[in-house]
């Protein structure tokens, strides 16, 4: 390591190169997958495939954005799948029983999600319980509440809720466009604001943050509340695709979401992560899903391959991380 001083521009350039390097690996993996499936299946290279993927991912993507924040502060949230269902169920009640229009129902869904997330964060911070445990409890509670809200039956809503998933621009639905906006905004907040800086600091060394004079508790709670809010929105997006509030919606979604975030290179130990990379992680999972379906892989095979990809992705990320550290 050479100990010379350099101009700030050099520093900026090298950090930009680092950023590109961060994206390059995932992007390459994604392109390779697309090429592979395009070669294997004659139907893969069609606008239809890509539109299907784009319109399929918003719920997972939006939740994964919030999950990235939570993993960055060293937490985890297992309750998002249930919170999605609960939020959609409450919005369903608002629309079916109170005849509220969609735009108000969305707020109901987001508010319900935010309350659940706030509780996760506040309980975990106040009693210093690992978020794994608190959100595991919330997973059950939210699911149970969703059953109560829907009388354990899928509540058909139909037309009024379709807006989110009705193609609007080049065959893309509003849900996808909203999700992209959220990805961009969340990435900017993470890298360019005081809030984002604090989140990375908390995940890196919370005690050092505290002794530097930063009150970490409200920040941590807010991160869980943001994830809850996004899960609520995701629940609404999913509800729109199903045209119904299904109490069984989003079962297991937490695992897909966490897998996508981890494939994107966000550390489960906290302190490191990128929303853009999470976006790539979500794309990799859905391209894999769609591609395997098209080449005729069975459901069990799909799951085995997806599982293997998660593990391999994390191993590769570990090597990449080590290499960058050695290069410095």
């Amino acid at each position, binding site marked *: *390591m*050479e*100990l*010379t*001083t*350099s101009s*700030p521009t*050099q*520093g*900026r350039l*090298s*950090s930009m190169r680092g950023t590109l390097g961060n994206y390059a690996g995932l992007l390459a993996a994604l392109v390779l997958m697309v090429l592979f499936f395009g070669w294997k299946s004659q139907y893969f290279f069609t606008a239809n495939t890509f539109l299907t993927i784009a319109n399929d991912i918003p719920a997972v993507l939006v939740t994964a954005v919030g999950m990235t924040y939570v993993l960055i502060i060293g937490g985890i949230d297992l309750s998002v799948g249930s919170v999605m269902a609960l939020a959609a169920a409450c919005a369903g009640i608002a629309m079916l029983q109170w005849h509220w229009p969609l735009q108000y129902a969305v707020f109901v869904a987001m508010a319900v999600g935010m309350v659940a997330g706030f509780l996760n964060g506040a309980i975990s911070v106040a009693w210093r319980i690992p978020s794994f445990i608190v959100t595991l409890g919330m997973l059950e509670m939210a699911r149970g509440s969703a059953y109560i809200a829907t009388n354990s039956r899928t509540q058909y809503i139909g037309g009024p809720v379709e807006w989110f998933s009705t193609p609007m621009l080049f065959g893309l639905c509003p849900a996808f466009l909203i999700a992209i906006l959220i990805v961009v905004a969340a990435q900017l907040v993470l890298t*360019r*604001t*005081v*809030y984002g*800086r*604090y989140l*990375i*600091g908390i995940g*890196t*060394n919370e*005690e*050092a*943050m*505290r*002794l*530097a*004079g*930063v*009150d970490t508790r409200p920040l941590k709670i807010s991160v869980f509340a943001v994830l809850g809010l996004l899960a609520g929105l995701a629940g609404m997006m999913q509800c729109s695709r199903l045209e119904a509030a299904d109490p069984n919606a989003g079962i297991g979604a937490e695992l897909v979401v966490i897998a996508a975030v981890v494939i994107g290179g966000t550390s489960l130990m906290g*302190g*490191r992560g990128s929303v853009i990379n999470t976006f790539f992680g979500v794309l990799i999972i859905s391209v894999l899903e769609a591609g395997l379906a098209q080449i005729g892989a069975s459901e069990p095979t799909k799951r085995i391959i997806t599982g293997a990809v998660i593990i391999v992705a994390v191993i590769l990320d570990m090597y990449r991380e080590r290499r960058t550290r050695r290069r*410095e």
Partner: protein
Amino acid sequence: MALLLGENLGKTYVTPVLRGVSFQLDQGEVLALTGENGAGKSTLTKIVAGLVHPSEGTMTLAGKPFSPASRQEAEGLGVRMVLQELGLIPTLSVAENLLMGHIPSRAGFIRRDRLNELAERQMAIIGLSGIDPRTLVGRLGVGYQQMVEIARNLVGDCRLLILDEPTATLTSHEIDRLFEQIHALKARGVGIIYISHRLDEMQQVADRVMVLRDGNHIATRPMAEVSQNDIVRLMVGHDVNQEGNAQARPATGRTALELRGLGRGKVVQDVSLSLQEGEILGMAGLVGAGRTELLRLIFGADPKDRGEVYLDGSATPARIGSPMAAVRLGLGLVPEDRKSQGLLLPLAIRINVTLSNIRAVARKGWLKGSLERLQVNRLRDLFGVKCSSIEQPVNELSGGNQQKVVFARWLHRDCKVLLLDEPTRGVDVSARADIYQQMEQLASAGKAILMVSSDLRELIQVCDRIAVMSAGRLVQVFNRGEWTQQALLEAAFSGYLAAPPVAP
């Protein structure tokens, strides 16, 4: 008969920490080992226990050459060390802990009866028959845990036992029990090296006392022939540079920080102190005297039980309930362990420097990258932080440069009172000089600095006044010119002497 002979033992890391130490330990003897912080006590005993390899010198154990390559090898030859940190597993029983590594079993299943029987026999050896071997270690008090730890080290053939500050966490009743055990071990012919800075305890338990200073063997005397004052004198020696930095800063007379009766449990007992603007006040004392804890109390990192903190000469006490409040009120802390408490190690210098005053480089919550780089580069140059750029992660910097980053953070915050905890520990000589110079400049600019250090020479060199804590109390405050190393050390030991502590 000589059990262990050490000849000309030395250890050099970057600088020598132990130089040509020769000593002898007899069978059934208790040798007390004492000296200032950093005198080389730990290094010497770790060499004996096989944890550290000497750079020079030889040892002979019971007439045979002894150069253990590892702790396991030393233990195989009956040389054992009870470390300050207990190595017990709290969720396992006393018996399982005692016999860990050779638990009796049949076809993989533990033979409980045999295990407990062996454990009971083991504990009887050191007269520890009051404990049921089935008890979980975590249920025992610290004192009994220490006994179990000692008993564990007596499994098999133990000829030499090293105890490192064994009484630090014990109550007086437990200490009595420990001493009974030590006498029982002596009677069995076990040689014991007993590290301590509690002079009264050494007099109770040791046959001879060995004093180290700056890695040199100063003297070994029969315990009966020396007084506590003699031992302190041997530890201190005579130092030429007692005066330190001659240029005194003019006192401003404006109080920046005042403590009245600040305390927490027994760790910090009712400390009253005042610190002026532009003053560097040193805080001397032995490890465990309560200095770090006092800084944490002032900074709100630990809750205080009693007393008040006043800032800026105000008549109303400052409400410092958390580090956030402290920072808001103009306090800054450079913590003892910069790696775990001070820095975000994998992150860039830039991020570490602006952490406490991030609003200064942001508008409405959005960071201004160019402004931040400008300010951090300026501080980097001011402190002379050696780095490839301010984007370099701090874990790639040397200890001294890491510490400069922590300093730079508080300068960026422009705090009024700076609390420094061992600011030059693990810092090389040239970075030290930079840090002293920065402290001088900060003081000249009117900042008040409270500096805890275990290095008396450093305190003498940079401080205007030196306060001494001993056993949780502030025992004495020396003005520049009034102090000598000996007076400072005597004050530091005063709380641990049999006699009542010197009134402040």
